[in-house]
């Protein structure tokens, strides 16, 4: 598949999932963004993006249910049986982060 086709598919997918204006802006920005982000962009297919339904975007993500375990390897190469939470990925816009002291 040519890069052009991939780009068109991505754009259509993004429009389908996120709606017109924001997705256009995102696609435009990503094409002018950094190389690392662009290379990853190709790996995110429209169908995958579609799977993050609107419900997921609305709900809070932290559930701390420790539903599954994933194996990860840290920088030193040590295997780490880290506990993964039943997390949900939210789609968010660029908005201010709120500071609040927890320590």
């Amino acid at each position, binding site marked *: 598949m040519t890069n052009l086709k991939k780009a068109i598919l991505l754009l259509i997918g993004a429009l389908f999932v*996120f709606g017109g*204006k*924001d*997705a256009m*802006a*995102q696609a435009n*920005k*990503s094409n*002018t*963004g*950094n*190389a*690392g*982000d662009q*290379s*990853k*962009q190709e*790996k*995110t297919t429209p169908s*995958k*993006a579609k799977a*993050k339904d609107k419900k997921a975007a609305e709900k*809070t*993500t*932290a559930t*701390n249910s420790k539903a599954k375990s*994933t194996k*990860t390897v*840290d*920088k030193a190469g040590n295997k*780490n049986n*880290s*506990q*993964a*939470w039943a*997390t*949900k*990925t*939210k*789609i*968010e*816009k*660029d*908005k*201010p*982060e*709120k*500071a*609040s*002291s*927890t*320590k």
Partner: protein
Amino acid sequence: MASSLLYKAQTRWLFHAHIKLKLSAFWDESVFDELFAVMETVNERYNSYSEGSFIDQINQQAGSFVNTDATTATLLQRLNDLSDDLAGEYDITVMPLIRLWGFYKTSAWRIPSDDEIRTALSQVDYRRIQIEDTKVAIEKDQEIITGSFVKAFAVDQVAKLMRATGITDAIINAGGSSICAINNDSHPYWQVEVNDTEDEDNALFLLQLTNQCYSTSSNENTFLEIEGKRYGHIISPKTGYPSENRQVGIISQDALTGDVLSTGLFNCNKETFLRRMEFLSEKYDVEGFLMDKNGDMVFSRNFEKYIIR
């Protein structure tokens, strides 16, 4: 003004806080597992509350040297240097005072006597931590608490991994008290909203950060109320009493430095804060503000240039 860029965000519970990672939407979400794994590793190895961590071992074997790793030794030395720069107003051996005031797993909520405070203070002194290569020892009656810095240390490790991976547009929000902005040319800044801790509806200011961190210390969420008076959990290692300030915010180049400075400076009055910030701004490229118990604020020399509203 916020842009129309889209991001993926995940929030997980670590270090007794909600840790949120938010990055460009076109990254595959599997990257979150790798990023959070770094934080979990920090939690396991360097959190004093994690059984078997290097810091826990140092505490358990107080009085003897413990074999740690290079990271532990470097980290503790760096914290000691920051304590020097704060003239001892920050001290990671403050745990006896934390216990005395009832902020750790007890319900001994009472005002300690002067004698009790004097005794606890005699156990608090970061200069008595011995570091020889990767071997570390504290004195028998000492105890290190990592609560004031370990989360920020984890944030720095995640930020490093993000940059190494090629993630150049992201923000890490660790419980609101440690926020790290990662920016590229397409998204040159992130905004951070700072509110009055005693009146959440009162927005103090909106900050604009570019590849910088924001750390805050306050008694907003952790305090004891004894006989109608509120006592915060940030206790001066010099006086043994909780600071009465309302809030400190620090903009820094890395999360650890910001977190440590905000904690130490929380114990200062306005005049001392301004004096210390002159030196600290020069040395660490940091800016900040302090709000005292009356709601009066002072800003370091260049803090206001980050305020956009």
